[in-house]
Structures are given as C-alpha cells and as structure tokens.
C-alpha cells in the first residue's frame, strides 16, 4: 500500500463521485421508467450511445458544446416519445417480458443505425475549451470538466426532485407508480404520463451520453457496458427507487474508483461483488420497496 | 376427538401501513368440524384467511397447526403439512386439462424432482384424480382445459385440486363468489359432504349460506372477533344482529 497518501485517496473519491454521477443519471432514468411503466429498458445503453453521437453531430453542425448539451436530451427525448408510442405501447398488458425483449431488440437496431450513419470507428469528443484544465480542490488537482458534470447532475437531480415532490405532475407520477388505476379514476390520461416519463428517462440517458463522451470516448458499442453498470446500480439501490439510484450510483462509482487505485485488475469486478453482497444481505436493494421517492 | 384443536390463531394482528386490518384475533378451530368465518364487508375476513393460510405474514401473533407454530412457513411446506386452500379468485393451471390439474396436485405427494421415469409411470395418480373429479361432478369434463370450464365448474375443479393433496384441513375463501343460485347450491352440498371427512374452514360473506351447515361460526367485525359459537348462539347474539342490521342490508335475513 506504499505510495497511497490520504490526498490521493480523497482525490480518488472525487473521481469516483464523478464516475458515479454518470451512473446516477442512467439509473435514475431507468428507475423512473421502471417505477411507472414496469418496463426494464434494455435499450437504455443504446439511448446513452445515441446521446453521445447526437452530441458529436450537433457539435459538428453548430460548433457549440452548450447548444449541444441542451439539444441532445431534446432529440433523444423525442426519440423516446416515438419509441414508446409506436413500439412499447402495443405491448402493455402482455406481461413484463415483452417490453423488455422489444427494447433489447431496439438496442441492436440503434447500434447498427449509428454504425450506418457514423461509421464503425469510434470518435473522439474533446472537452469544451471553457472546461479544460483542472482546479485545485485542496487535496490535489481535479479536472474541471468532471466538476462540471457533477454540478450539472446535482442541478438536474434538484430539478427532478422539485418536479416530483412539488408539482401537480409529480403528484400524478408518484400516485401512478403506486397504482395506475387510482390515477385513471382521477381522470388523468395515464398513457400520456407514461409517454412523458419514458421520454424523460431516455432524455436523461441521452444527456448522460453527451456528458460522458469527453471522458469515455464515443463508439457504437459504448452503451453495452453502461447498460450493465446501470443495472447493477439499480439492483443495488432497489428497483424503482430514485433515492436508491442516487445513493447506489455514487457508492458504486466510489467502489470502482477506489478499487482501481488499490487493485487495478479488480476494478471491473468490484461493482459485481457489491451487487452479489446486496443480493445476499438485502435482496430488494438498499432502498427497495419504498416507493418511487423511497 | 371432537374437543381437539387442529388450527388456532393466537392474538393475530395485521396492519397495512397505518391501516389495522386485524386486531388481536384469537380463534381455535376444532378438528373434524366445519367452521365458518363471516362478517360484513371490510371486516377483515380475507385478511384473516390469508394469515391462517400462510399467504400473509401477521404483524403480531402466531398461527398454530396441530401444535406446531406455522407462522411464516412457506406455502409449499404448509401444503405438505396437510393444509389445502381454495382462493377467492380462481387459481388453476389454465391451459392444462381438468384431469392434469388434479393429477399434478396429487403428484406433489409422491414425486417432485423425479426427472427420468415418465410421469405416466407413477402408479394410481390418474385413477385418483379421476375419482376426485367424479366426486366434485366433473367426471365428464376430464379432458377440458381448465380455462374452458364454466365458472362454477372451475370452482369445483379448484376444490378437487385442493383435495388431491389429501389435506387434513381445507380452507375455502368465498367458494360461491360470482356463482348462479344452482351452482351455489351444488357447491354448498359438496362442501357439506367434504366436511364429513375432514376439517373445513369456510370464509363467507353471505351469512345465510353457512348458518345451516356450520358446526361453529366466527363473526369478524372491524378486524376483531365480535362473536363465536354455534349457529344458534350466533343467531341469538344481539351484537351480531346490530352489526348486520346496522348495515341495513337484507343479509340480516339470515338471522331469522
């Protein structure tokens, strides 16, 4: 363990939090969709990948990272709208497996469509000029862009929290997660809520895609490991729990980051060990069965 | 044998969040008798049924079967101890034939993990299933998939499925729900016949149906035991009258 100072450790914790924020964005979208629609979105990684590529495209057309950052979630969200309406809606009421299988197939298709549009080679996505360099955070220098990603995620989570806890829409979302029939009785068009929630979840995945692009690179298969990571986070946090998604996302980020410091070969494996432990000790996840905001 | 208790609920309570569905319910079910649990809507009958049948874990108290604490025991172990049940909402193997429904249930007693010999080589199961189906009046419907049977026939099939595990205790939750008067009559006759050979606990909303056939009646109200006794004692009970009459519904006619 020589050479590992406290500062290095703390710096690695920060790196883990930055990694974790991407997990959080993905897992929150996944949990939101599952909590309301009981659909496990196997195309979530593909939406993430499409987000990154839309970032590449919009940046190429407009030259503005900031414009792309706003545009990507919109584009991917609209894609989500179309997918829910055209492909997933016909499958409601046919059991939980069919929407899952469909989104799985959709993942294949999206990956190949991107290959056709952008080629099979990966793209680089350079960090925007304003966010290059690093800042001293007391324990060492930390990349500015990662701080930016953490800040954006924190702001988004606050906005989401406000949407769900503080607005009429949130009330419907919370009630709908508990019992769709109640919402239906109240005269709300449930299918519309589902549509919007699916779009919101995919938009978050797309946003995670463009945010992660400068850190992880952009390539057609980039969504596959991400999908699995998001699943691990969701299982650890508790399916359908937003608080669980946040806590587990940050936790897993730190576990992976710290493992890569002390035992690099174990870094990939560490998150699965956490998941196995949670499954053995707390089978419904850290925050399972507590409702959407639990 | 008549004084012996086969099943008892001791101080059973059940809460759902802030809602108290059952409060300190203690009931002893005598062996070999037909005991009915009645009560107005929302009295906690179904919750109580689910607790004594092991589908719900009580928040407090325990359930004892033949001297053994069975609280929280898994469903399949309860079945092997000799407790069978028929649910309020029909629960069968819909695509399998009536015969196969009962045959599989009977198979649970003899082979659960046998992977090599064909199932048709298990001796006696088909005959046993056929006899049971004859007994519930489905002798001519052996080859019909469960989903293709009429509602009343499905309820009868469910009873045959329950009987196939040779239970010492049979729990029935509103077996006549949604039935026509003729279907109701034939099912009630069947239940009376079954009760001559084993202990039966019957949860029923329609008081009138059970008063003439039960050995004992337990009345639940607001999640508590309101009264317990022979049908005659229940008929004479002022509190029971008040509860049923207080609802202002003709079900009280059963009290006469």
């Amino acid at each position: 363990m020589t050479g590992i100072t406290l500062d290095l450790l703390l710096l690695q914790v920060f790196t883990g939090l930055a990694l974790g924020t991407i997990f959080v964005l993905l897992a929150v979208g996944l949990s939101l969709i599952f909590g309301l629609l009981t659909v496990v979105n196997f195309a979530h990684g593909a939406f993430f990948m499409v987000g990154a590529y839309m970032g590449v495209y919009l940046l190429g057309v407009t030259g503005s990272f900031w414009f792309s950052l706003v545009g990507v979630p919109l584009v991917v969200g609209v894609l989500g709208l179309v997918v829910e309406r055209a492909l997933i809606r016909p499958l409601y009421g046919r059991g939980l497996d069919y929407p899952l299988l469909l989104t799985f197939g959709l993942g294949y298709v999206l990956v190949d469509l991107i290959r056709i549009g952008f080629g099979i080679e990966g793209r680089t996505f350079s960090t925007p000029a304003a966010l290059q360099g690093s800042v001293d955070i007391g324990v060492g220098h930390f990349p500015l862009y990662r701080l930016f990603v953490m800040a954006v995620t924190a702001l988004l989570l606050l906005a989401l929290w406000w949407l769900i806890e503080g607005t009429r829409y949130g009330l419907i979302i919370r009630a709908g997660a508990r019992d769709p029939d109640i919402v239906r009785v109240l005269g709300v068009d449930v299918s519309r809520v589902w549509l919007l929630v699916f779009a919101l979840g995919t938009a978050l995945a797309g946003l995670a895609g463009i945010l992660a692009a400068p850190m992880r690179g952009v390539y057609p298969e980039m969504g596959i490991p991400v999908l699995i990571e998001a699943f691990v986070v969701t299982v650890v946090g508790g399916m359908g729990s937003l608080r669980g998604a946040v806590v587990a996302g940050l936790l897993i980020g730190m576990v992976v980051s710290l493992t890569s410091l002390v035992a690099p070969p174990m870094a990939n494996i560490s998150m699965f060990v956490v998941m196995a432990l949670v499954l053995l000790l707390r089978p419904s996840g850290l925050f399972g069965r507590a409702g959407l905001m639990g | 044998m008549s004084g012996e208790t086969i099943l008892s609920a001791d101080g059973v309570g059940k809460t759902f969040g802030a809602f108290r569905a059952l409060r300190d319910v203690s009931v002893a079910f005598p062996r070999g008798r037909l005991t009915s649990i009645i009560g107005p809507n929302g009295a906690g009958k179904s919750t109580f049924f689910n607790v004594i049948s092991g589908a719900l874990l009580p928040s407090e108290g325990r359930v004892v079967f033949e001297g053994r604490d069975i609280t929280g025991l898994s469903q399949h172990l309860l079945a092997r101890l000799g407790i069978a049940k028929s649910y309020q909402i029909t629960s069968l193997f819909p695509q399998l034939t009536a015969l196969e429904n009962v045959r599989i249930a009977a198979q649970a007693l003899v082979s659960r993990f046998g992977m090599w010999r064909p199932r048709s080589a298990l001796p006696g199961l088909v005959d046993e299933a056929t006899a049971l189906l004859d007994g519930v009046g489905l002798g001519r419907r052996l080859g019909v998939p469960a989903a293709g049977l009429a509602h009343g026939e499905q309820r009868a099939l469910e009873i045959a499925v329950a009987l196939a595990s040779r239970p010492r205790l049979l729990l029935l939750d509103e077996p006549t729900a949604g039935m026509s008067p003729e279907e109701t009559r034939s099912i009630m006759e069947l239940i009376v016949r079954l009760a001559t050979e084993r202990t039966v606990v019957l949860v029923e909303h329609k008081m009138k149906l059970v008063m003439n056939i039960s050995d004992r009646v337990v009345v639940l109200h607001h999640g508590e035991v309101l009264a317990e006794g022979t049908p005659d004692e229940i008929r004479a009970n002022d509190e029971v009258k008040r509860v049923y009459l207080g609802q202002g519904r003709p079900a009280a006619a059963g009290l006469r």
Partner: protein
Amino acid sequence: MSALRTALGRVVALCGPHRVAVMIVFFVVFPWLMPYKALAINVLILGLFAVGFNIVFGYTGLLSFGHAAFFGLGAYGCGIAIARYGLPWPLALGAGVLLAGVGAVLIGGLSIRRRGIYFAMVTLALAQLVYYIFYQAEPITGGENGLRGVDVRTIALGPVALDFLAPTVKYYFVLVFVSLALWCLSRVLESPFGAVLEAIRENETRARACGFDVDGTKLAAFVLSGLFCGLAGGLKAMHLSIVPTEVLHYQTSGLVVIMALLGGMGTFFGPFVGAAVFLLIEDQVSLVTAQWQLVAGSLFMVFVLFFPNGIWGSLLQWVGRAP
C-alpha cells in the same frame, strides 16, 4: 390452404410421440440442405445452446439474460482441460459441462429468488462478472486473445481413428451429442419434474399451494439448463479449436434469447429453427451488407410485436396444435 393445414396437422400429430427420432432423422440429412457444412455444425451447436436456454425461458417462464456464462464456462472448461492439462476430449467435455453446472448453481442461487424483472438484470450482471473474471485471468484463459490450442485432431472409435478436422465427421460427432441431449430433455419433459415445470409456468401460486417447492424447482431447471448450455459450449470449443472471449459476452446471452424467441419458446424443435434462421440471416445478409444486425434486430422486434410464439410455435398454432 386448409387441406395443407390439415395434412400438416396430421404429420405433426404423428411425429409428436417420436419427436426425438424424427429430429435425428432430419438432422442426418440436414447438412445437404445448408450452403456449407460449417454452417450446419453451427446450427447444431447454437441450436443446442438455445434448447438449453429454452428449459428456463420456454418451459419454466424465466427470462435469463446471462446464459452466455454457461455456454462460455462449458467452452472454457473443455478448452482449458485440453489446452492446458492435455486431458482426452471425453473428460474435457465432461469438465466443461461440470463447470457450467457449478456456475449455474452459483448464479441461479443468487438470482432465482429475484422475481421476474430483477431476474433478467441480475443474471445479465452476474454473467458479465464471469466474463471479466475470465478476461482478467490471462495465464489460464489467454485473456483478450482467447484460448488457443484446443486441438482435437482425431476421435478414437475403438480401432478406428476418425479425422475430426473433416467437416462431415465433425458434424456427425456433434450430432451424436445433440441427439443424446435431446433424448434426455424429452425424458425430463415427460417426467414428473417436467409436469412441475408446466405447473409453475401456468400458475406459480397454485403450484406452491399444491406443495411444490417453486424456488427449488426453478433452481433445478436453471442448473439443468446450464448443463445443456455447457455441453453446447464444450462442443463449440472443440469445433473452433480456440475459445474466443466472445463466448462469455453479453452479445452471446442476447443471441440465445433472439434464437429461442425467433424459433418459438417452449417448443421442442423451435430452438433449432431459430438458430438456423439467425445464422442464415447472418451468413446471407452479411454478404450484402455489414449491417446484418439491423436486419436481425428488426426481425426480432417484429416477432416480439406480432409473432411472440416464434416461427415454429406459430406454425404449430396454425396447424391447430398449440405449442
């Protein structure tokens, strides 16, 4: 049309009781129906993989997204036994099947109690764990480059040594194992245990109330399925003479889901139909365009939306014999 339908229905009804024999006869002539032998071998191996997967997906109603783990464990187990320890192939194949079985006990033990939707995610994640472990253990597994040197040149059959490198020999060698596996599966499905699987698929609550240990039965089915997939993996290793890391990859888990659904879940012959269709698409479409996955993925979505019973299942339904 209706005459054809009736006739087909009669044929299927006649074949039913002898399904294993009928399939073996079909596979004896099958290589001549395919463009080349290697494709026929792949149909057999991946079809067997899909048959194994079908035990949980089709017959028990569990959607696993981690079956690459068992295919891969079978392949690596067999491959390592041959390439690293020089074991004769029958022992190596057994080692592969055994390793897959152990993997199925562990993964199944962790995941089987997770209902429905969790199950797909947990199996996927645990299979990925297996992938990373084998990827990392380079001294034994060859890591990223795959495991090389799984050389089986001849199959000794008494005094005769068969040339395993000849495609025809290889095909019939694989067919012997596929036939044995199908015969075993047919027996299991006919057995009391098979009846319990049907009961669980139809109504889990009632199966429990009848006295069946549903979780235990599911775990047994899961392990059985793992053994079949392990055998397929072992045969794959012998066939390729290397074990690429892809056998453990997410895509392999997905591949078997696609094949089983395309063919028809819960049908006896469906998995082979699915494997054949998928491989033909891969083979033929990739001649025209590199984007054969687009075609396969779209076709898969069409089947999920409109033909959930798959090709073989829909055909059985059409001739009036429900799958």
